């Protein structure tokens, strides 16, 4: 069970949240072309290690959260609001 510290609600169980995918992606400009939109829609780095991702607090404040989480240990390094810049930790993690 993950415990996620929501910036608005405090620490809650993972069951209140829904995963919403890779938060490194940003929508290309309208004229960026097919390759850019294909990459944005379908291709994922899918790292084994620290991952910046979206979670939705669907069973709480319904806000979108940005989380840095490790994809092997599931350790959460930081939780932020959508506009926050969350750096990935330098150390490889457990």
């Amino acid at each position: 069970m993950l415990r996620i510290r929501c910036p608005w609600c405090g620490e809650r169980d993972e069951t209140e949240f829904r995963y919403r995918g890779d938060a490194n992606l940003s929508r290309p400009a309208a004229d960026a072309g097919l390759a850019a939109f294909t990459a944005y829609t379908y291709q994922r780095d899918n790292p084994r290690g620290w991952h910046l991702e979206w979670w939705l607090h669907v069973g709480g404040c319904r806000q979108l959260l940005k989380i840095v989480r490790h994809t092997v240990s599931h350790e959460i390094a930081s939780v932020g609001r959508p506009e926050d810049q969350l750096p990935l930790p330098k150390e490889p993690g457990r």
Partner: protein
Amino acid sequence: MTPVPKSQPIPSSAERVSSGRYSGWRLFLEGVTGQRGWSHAWTKAAPRPRYRVVIVGGGGHGLATAYYLAAEYGISDVAVLEKGPVGLGNVGRNTTIIRSNYFLPDNVRFYEYSLKLWERLERTLNFNVMVSQRGTLNLFHTEAQRDLYTRRANMMRLLGVDAKALSRAAVKALVPLVDLDNGRYPVLGGFLQPRGGTVRHDAVAWGYARAASAAGVDIIEHCEVTGIGRDGRRVTGVDTTRGQIAADTVCLAVAGHSSQLAAMAGLTLPIETHVLQAFVSEAIKPVLDVVVTYGAGHFYVSQSDKGGLVFGGAIDGYNTYGQRGTLPIAQEVAMEAMTLMPGLARVKVLRQWGGVMDMSMDGSPIISKTPLDGLILNAGWCYGGFKAIPAGGMTTAHLIARDLAHPLAAHLDLERFAAGRTVDERGAGPFPYAH
């Protein structure tokens, strides 16, 4: 990386072991002569510096691809590289179900081909993989769901695949354990694919490994790939913990870690890695002789020949490479089991485990060439890779040998994402956690 055990010297490729042909007569003969004639089922080969084909991943799809390359396409200059021992990855972590009850015609044809290969696999491999066509039953709980399942069953029947509608009474007669009258999700009926069923998963790995080895394939265990060699747009071989190996063709069959291996070649894939859990109960008397799936949640269950109930549910739902699984899903699966089969309330769970899988962006696998010459991909199996092993192996071997997609797997190419012809069985869109 797991070190190579020192106690077992690894014979070179020249000293190929042969376990002989298995038969009832042989079993009898060994029985009366003290079981002294059995030997290792496959040769523990050491890597040679070059092969025509190197397959990365000694799981179901890698071994099946190697076997069909040697047996059906006449290419035996093949090595299968496996990081650990054969059989400990997803081929030994699934819930052993086989079926071809899909809706999209291309999927029905592909999985039906697989089911037909399963039906004669024991004769093909001379290995008892315990194919048991006990039937797979999908229950429905609303009228809308009945219509959806009817549509799927009609599509299957149009394509010559078996599907049968069952009334409530017929469901109860087939599976007395099911509580038809649950207050929230009463069972309205079900659809049965009588030819679906289960297969002993470990035996599938062992059977393919033995048959491939006998056909001349080198199966190299404890050999982890650490890099993929490139010369411009051409793949030249792999770097491994046991040295460099050159190859004309490198095939990645490492579901769960496809993104990691593809990254070594500089490719990004339409895949996220997720974990799926499975559970086995203590052994109980025979109570369930079909595979049952629950329609009001994500739960499926069958009973193994040992008596344990083998069951599972949905993926945990977020990217992970942790082969373990977390408790919220375990709890959800247990609740669904109780809703569907309250009679199981006092059965104890014996074991739980997780396997990490490639969840592709449209929920369908990828059997494809890549932008790099000589690099072939067998990936993206989501949680349905086991049933597809024979067809996945055959069609991947075809692609390698003929340099052309097998007609039954042409729709599974990597280009489909950019071309806008995704194979989205659930219609869930490009969200792997939703498939």
